[in-house]
């Protein structure tokens, strides 16, 4: 009976667009979905540091180097908030980290693409963070309180990152012929994978309905993808880059952009561990984790000794 009252409370809170908080009762499936989604998001921030950190030592000006370090550091920070949000649901950071390293947890497939060119730092900001924002802005109103609040802070920083990415590309497009080519080549590589970040088409997205009912998710994959392209088209015009979709055009009837066919085979290949950098990304994360073990053990041992020390 009690459960039923609690369940009613939960349903009412959701219906009223109120927030569920850690001590509130919630259905197991809601908790599980959230842990999966939040930890996946946290892992994405952490793995997402890799393609960008690849350019820290080689950033072509000291200003860009400083901006890039700050950005990668923000991502570590986002990872930390999100792990904290997930921990409020009863899963420890160690468990989540172990799942990531063992290859049992997902992170956004986009980070399995490499960043071989400096322009990729621009494209990651403009396209990848841009897509992330489209996905995440609605999450600021996610029904689970700690998640929504983490997203507010993260979205603010992400939109800053997106602008920085745009500026990198703008500087390149206003630069030498080699720089313009560098920018266009990079946009060509990142455009389609960025569109895939919204996930499979609505008719092939089995979990979306429940997430929308729970107000964890508020728009369908295809809606968000459209919103993203709407945002990109005028920005691409300002940059002077061509979006690599010959079929992209504004449809007067629907008042939306018609998109070319997305290569879902590639999407599924990357998801299945056959992308360009899946192995590299996990190896790097595991190595950092393993190499740091003695340090974490030392910190724990020291903390333990200090706690055991009588006050003097």
């Amino acid at each position, binding site marked *: 009976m009690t459960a039923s009252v609690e369940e009613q409370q939960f349903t009412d809170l959701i219906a009223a667009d109120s927030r569920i908080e850690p001590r509130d009762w919630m259905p197991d499936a809601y908790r599980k979905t959230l842990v999966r989604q939040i930890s996946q998001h946290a892992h994405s921030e*952490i793995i997402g*540091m*890799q393609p960008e*950190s690849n350019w*820290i*030592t*080689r*950033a*072509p*000006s*000291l*200003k*860009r*180097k*400083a901006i890039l*370090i*700050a950005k*990668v*550091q923000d991502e*570590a*920070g986002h*990872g*930390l908030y999100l*792990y904290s949000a997930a921990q409020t649901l009863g899963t420890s950071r160690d468990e989540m980290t172990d799942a990531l390293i063992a290859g049992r947890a997902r992170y956004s497939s986009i980070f399995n693409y490499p960043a071989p060119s*400096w322009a990729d730092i621009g494209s990651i900001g403009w396209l990848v963070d841009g897509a992330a924002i489209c996905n995440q802005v609605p999450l600021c109103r996610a029904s689970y309180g700690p998640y929504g609040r983490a997203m507010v802070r993260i979205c603010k920083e992400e939109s800053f990152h997106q602008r920085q990415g745009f500026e*990198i590309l703008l*500087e*390149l497009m*206003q*630069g*030498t012929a*080699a*720089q313009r080519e560098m920018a266009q080549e990079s946009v060509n590589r990142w455009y389609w994978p960025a569109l895939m970040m919204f996930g499979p088409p609505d008719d092939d997205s089995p979990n979306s309905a429940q997430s929308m009912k729970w107000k964890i998710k508020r728009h369908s994959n295809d809606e968000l993808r459209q919103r993203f392209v709407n945002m990109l088209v005028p920005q691409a015009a300002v940059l002077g880059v061509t979006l690599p979709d010959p079929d992209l055009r504004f449809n007067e009837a629907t008042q939306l952009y018609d998109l070319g066919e997305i290569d879902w085979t590639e999407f599924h290949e990357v998801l299945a561990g056959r992308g360009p950098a899946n192995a590299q990304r996990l190896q*790097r994360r595991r*190595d*950092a984790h393993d*190499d*740091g*073990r*003695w*340090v*974490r*053990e*030392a*910190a*724990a*041992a*020291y*903390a333990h*000794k200090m706690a055991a020390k009588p006050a003097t």
Partner: protein
Amino acid sequence: MSVASADVAEYATWLGDDSLILAQRLGELISRAPELEEDVALGNIALDLLGHARSLLQYAGTATAQNEDDLAYWRTEPDFRSAHLMEQPNGDFAHVIARQLVSAHYLYELYARLQASADLTLAAIAAKAVKEVNYHRDHAAQWTLRLALGTDESRRRMVAALSDVWPYVDELFRDEPFIDRLDGIAARPSTLRTAFDAAIEPVLAEADLAVPRGFTAAGGGRRGVHSEHLAFVLAEMQVLTRAHPGAKW
């Protein structure tokens, strides 16, 4: 920003290069730290140092109408003025911390003194930097304690790291003849040693670490004579910029 004299520019380059190269080394670590909190902390420290480097190199550049990037990306090894300590490879985390412990204690005494420089630009840069390197000092000291007093393995590593880093301490406090021309402007390196020792020794004592004895590296960074490591740092740092002469980023 006022225009630096040739001598002041040389001095600003000493300081700027130290911070630039150390920031570059720390930049190699970001996304590879032992825990996420340290990715954030080392990133912060790298950013602070890079900020100091940029201010100092901008100022140095005023003497020759060059900007910070001209100096960072287009000088060759013999024109760099970094001390060998800053050039040392990261090694394991204990080596990173040992290098941070020494460099932050050195930079703290340097900037503390430089706040009173007769050169107002240097004084202003120092006044901002001293607060930041004070935090770096704490960060390194805390980790020194954790590693030296944590586990047997961490202690063994911390002892080795301190002993590997210590040969490079001496150079930081060596007076080049050139410094005589900057009386009242520069902080004479040799005069910072007492304060450095007085600040670092209690940390070592609390960590039950002896001041290492043994090698003293001859150094020479201030005269453009570098460790074998610097060329590799520069090759990587400058590769993209140099592939595109005249480009803006």
